[in-house]
């Protein structure tokens, strides 16, 4: 099932050691950040095996790019950015049809907070959003980022990010309100 995570801080000195070629330090970074990277990809595709593939590739890219990472906070930002780009690239490469939210299965009945069934249905609905809305919603509600931080990751103006968020929430509310 799911687990509750707090923002994983990278221990002092781990990045510097990894940059010097210390594999155990790099493994430590992977362990600290794997939930964040995996979850972004999982919430984008709602597919665990595909999410793992993307997450592994993101860490391999990080390993190759360690020399360009300036700080721990830069590392987290870098991972979020690379993971979101890889999600979009993967989606376009396989030419998956973007499923309209109206085509996603109906929800049943009034819902309870922190209910695994509701969570499952909501994830299906989010995975059915258009790709940019999906990324913006994931970064907002999984990573708790504000629109200004999201715009730095997805490379869109802040007002466009807000507009995507607004449209996604309106679509999700409409869908839930129909129940």
């Amino acid at each position: 099932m799911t687990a509750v995570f707090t923002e994983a801080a990278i221990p002092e000195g781990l990045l510097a050691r990894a940059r010097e070629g210390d594999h155990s330090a790099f493994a430590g970074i992977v362990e600290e950040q794997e939930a964040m990277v995996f979850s972004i990809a999982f919430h984008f595709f709602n597919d665990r095996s595909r999410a793992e593939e993307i997450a592994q590739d993101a860490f391999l890219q990080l390993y190759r790019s360690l020399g360009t990472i300036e700080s721990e906070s830069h590392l987290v930002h870098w991972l979020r950015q690379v993971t979101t780009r890889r999600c979009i690239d993967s989606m376009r490469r396989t030419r998956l049809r973007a499923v309209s939210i109206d085509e996603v299965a109906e929800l049943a009945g009034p819902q309870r907070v922190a209910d695994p069934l509701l969570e499952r249905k909501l994830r299906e609905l989010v995975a059915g959003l258009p790709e940019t809305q999906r990324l913006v919603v994931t970064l907002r509600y999984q990573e708790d980022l504000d629109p200004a931080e999201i715009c730095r990751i997805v490379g869109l103006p802040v007002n466009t990010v807000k507009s995507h968020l607004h449209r996604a929430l309106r679509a999700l509310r409409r869908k839930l309100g129909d129940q």
Partner: protein
Amino acid sequence: MRKYAFFLLTIFLALPASAQRINIDIPGLAERAAEVIDVTLDAQMLRVASKFFSSRDSDRAVREMVNGLEGIYVRSYEFDKVGEYDRAIVDRLRSQLGAEWKKIVNVRSRDRENVEVFLHMRGDAVRGLFVISAEPRELTIVNIVGPIDIDKLGSLEGQFGIPKMSMEKGKQ
């Protein structure tokens, strides 16, 4: 001979509870699923749980329902892809049901879910509930053991996120 009779009596006494308990554990299925909901509550755990319901009316209704039960078992599997579980599993589950189990609902749909609802009847009393819901990417199995009042289950509607429903008992 007396030993043999005692053995038979023991089996007979044990039968009422075990006849309502269905083996819903399917080896290897959880490993293939992307997400699993597994609820296993025997009589002892149900007694423990019932102490944690408050004295509010809504909580009391659940506690009263739970108090008489001998077990609640739920397995719900969600898969990444269509066809990741063998539909023959449903046949194997159904084959465990004895003559006391009456099918009250059987919905088959090509695109949506197939739902089968069975009640374990002793006279007019319902002594168990068994539900199989098979969707292309989801399989849910519910087995409630013990006297269950469908009306009481209906009275919980709208509470704790339980959707509104009303089952007509005995309707095919």
